[in-house]
C-alpha cells in the first residue's frame, strides 16, 4: 500500500515569534524549524500502517522553501521511504488554496491509496489544506481522527474521529484523505541509524511546471499581522489576609464582573 503524508515545516513551539519588518510575515531570524507536531502524528500513523501490513511505501511531501528539506529529512530519519519537495519560487506567496492545488496535483501523480495530514499546522492554524486537497481529488475525507484500521483487503479504512463528547466511527472507501488529531499515537524518535540512513533516501524536487501548474496568484492576501496588546499589569493586594480576601471578592465582583 502506498501512503502519502503531507508535512509542513513550522517554527518550534518554544519560539518567541516576532512580526517581520513588512508587518505581513514573521521575522525568520533565530527561529528553529520543526515538523509541525500534528504532522508527526500523521507520519507515525503512516509508518504504523506500513509496518502492520508488512509492506508498502511511505512518501512524505512538503511545499516550502529550501530549508523545508530539513523537515523532510526528519521524516526520512523516522522511517519514511522517500520524499518530494514542492520547491519553486512560484509558490513563494502561496495561500492554502494554492498549496492544496499543488499537493493534490502531486498526489494524483503518485496515486496512493491513503493520504495523511496533520489536523492543522501550528504556525497559521488554518486547518484548511487536508479538506481542500480531498475536494480537489474528489476523495472522501475524515478530519481529526483518533484511531484508524485499514481493512485487510485494503478496500476501506475504519476511522474514529473526535466529536463533542465521544468518537464518531466511519468506514471510508480507499483512496481517501485523513487528518490526524493528537492522541492518534505517540510519534517515535528518529533513531541514529535512521538519521544516518536518511541521506541515502531520495528527495525529489518538483517545480510548478512539472505539475502542469502556472504561477498561481494567492486568492487570500495578508493585510497585516498584529501583535496582541500588552497585558495590563496584575494587581497585588496587600494588607491583612482577611481584608485582602474581602477586597479580592469585591474586585472580582464589581471591577472584573467575574463572579
Amino acid at each position, binding site marked *: 500500500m502506498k501512503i502519502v503524508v503531507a508535512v509542513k515545516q513550522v517554527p518550534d513551539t518554544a519560539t518567541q515569534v516576532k512580526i517581520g519588518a513588512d508587518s505581513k510575515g514573521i521575522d525568520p531570524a533565530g527561529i528553529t524549524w520543526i515538523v509541525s507536531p500534528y504532522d508527526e502524528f500523521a507520519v507515525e500513523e503512516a509508518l504504523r500502517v506500513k509496518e502492520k501490513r508488512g509492506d508498502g511505501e511511505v512518501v512524505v511531501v512538503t511545499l516550502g522553501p529550501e530549508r523545508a528539506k530539513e523537515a523532510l529529512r526528519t521524516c526520512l530519519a523516522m522511517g519514511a521511504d522517500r520524499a518530494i519537495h514542492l520547491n519553486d519560487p512560484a509558490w513563494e506567496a502561496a495561500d492554502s488554496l494554492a498549496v492544496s492545488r499543488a499537493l493534490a496535483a502531486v498526489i494524483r501523480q503518485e496515486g496512493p491509496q491513503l493520504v495523511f495530514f496533520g489536523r492543522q499546522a501550528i504556525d497559521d492554524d488554518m486547518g484548511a489544506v487536508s479538506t481542500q486537497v480531498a475536494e480537489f481529488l474528489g476523495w472522501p475525507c475524515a478530519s481529526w481522527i483518533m484511531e484508524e484500521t485499514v481493512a485487510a483487503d485494503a478496500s476501506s479504512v475504519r476511522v474514529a474521529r473526535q466529536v463533542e463528547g465521544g468518537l464518531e466511527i466511519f468506514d471510508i472507501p480507499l483512496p481517501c484523505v485523513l487528518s490526524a488529531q493528537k492522541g492518534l499515537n505517540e510519534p517515535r*524518535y*528518529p533513531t*541514529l541509524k535512521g538519521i544516518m540512513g536518511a541521506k541515502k533516501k531520495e528527495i525529489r524536487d518538483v517545480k510548478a511546471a512539472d505539475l502542469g501548474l502556472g504561477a498561481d496568484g494567492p486568492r487570500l492576501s495578508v493585510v497585516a499581522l498584529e501583535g496582541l496588546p500588552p497585558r495590563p499589569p496584575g494587581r497585588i493586594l496587600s494588607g491583612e489576609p482577611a481584608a485582602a480576601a474581602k477586597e479580592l471578592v469585591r474586585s472580582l465582583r464589581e471591577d472584573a464582573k467575574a463572579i
Partner: protein
Amino acid sequence: MKLELTEEQQMIQALAREFAEKEVQPVAGRLDQEARFPHETVKRMGELGFLGIAVPEAYGGAGADPVAYVLALEEIAKVCASHAVIMSVNNSLYCDPVLKYGTEDQRRKFLTPFASGQKIGCFALTEPQAGSDASNQHTLAVPDGSRYVLNGRKAFVTNGREAAAALVVAQTDAAKGRHGISAFLVEKGTPGFLVPKVEDKLGIRASDTAEFVFEDCRVPAENRLGSEGMGFKIAMSSLDGGRIGIAAQALGIAAGAFERSVAYAKERKAFGVPIGQHQMVQWMLADMATAIDAARLLVWRAATLKGAGQPFGVEASMAKLFASEMAMKVTTDAIQVHGGYGYIKEFQVERYFRDAKITQIYEGTSQIQKLVIARHLLGTQ
C-alpha cells in the same frame, strides 16, 4: 577552518537533547538520590543507537562519527552525568577496542549485541594498587591448554554490576612488565568471575561502580583481544578515546549547570532587581560561558581529529584536563549564583557539582593528563 556541524550531526544532537529532556530529566534527581541504575532509559538509549554511535552498522552500531558522539554525550550529560558515563564507557572503553582489535568472531559475539544496546559492556583496568600507575597489574592470566586462568582483583569498574561482558586487563608474563600485559573479553557468569561489591559514591550515583574478583576463572583463549603482550597498548589507546568522552561529559555537566544558572539569574530578585542585573553575578555568568565554550572547542577538535584518523591523544588529554577542571569551577559557581537554594537538592545544581568531581579523576586524573601533555611537549617517556 570551518566550524560547522553536518546536518546528521545536528539531527543527532537534537535527538539527544529531546530524549534527555523528555525521558531522562524527569527521573534524574530520584535516580541520583536512590543510587539506582536507570535500566529503562538505558534500554531506550540502546534502541535509539546511543550505545554504539561510532560503530559501523554492520556490527549493530549507528555508523556515525566521533563528533556526533561528543554532541550526543554533551546533551545527555547536561541532564544526567550518570547516563553519560554509562554511555561513554560502553562506546569508548568497550565497543571501540573490540571493533579496533577484535577478530571477526569476537566482533560478532562481543560487539554487535553491545553496540545495539541489547547488552552493555565495561572496562576493567584499575586495581587497588594500580590506578594512576595502571601498568602495575597484579591480576594474572596463566595459559592452561586452550584457556587462560585468571586470578586477581579489579577496582572501580563502571557498569561492572550491569555489564554482560568485561574487557579485562591482566598480566600474562610478569617478567615483561607492561609488555607482558594482555586483554581479555570475559563473560559474566563465567565460573570464578565474582562481583563482591558495588561502591556508594559522592556523584554519578545512578552509574554502578563495582569491584571484580577473579578466582581461578577460566577464559577461552579465543577471548583474548589482540595478541599476548598487547593489552596495555589496547588499554591506553582505548583511554585516549575515552578521554574525549569524559571531556564531553564534563562539558555537558557544566553546560547544564550554566543553563540553570542563567534562568535563575533572570528570575531571582535581590535588592529590587533580578540578580542577573548585579555586576558580580554577570561576571560569574560571563566567565562560565567563556570557559564552557573554550572546552567545547577543545572537545570538538579532539573528536574531529579522531574522526579523521589522525593522532589525537594529546588533544584528548588537553580537552579532558581543561573540561573537567572547568566543570568543577562552573558547577561551584552555579551553586553560588543560586545562593542558598543552590545548596538544596530540589534545585539540582548540587547534583551537577557532585557529578563534576569524578571527571577530574577517572580515565586519568588531572595530574596524569598534565603528565601526558608534558611528556608529549618534551618528547620524554
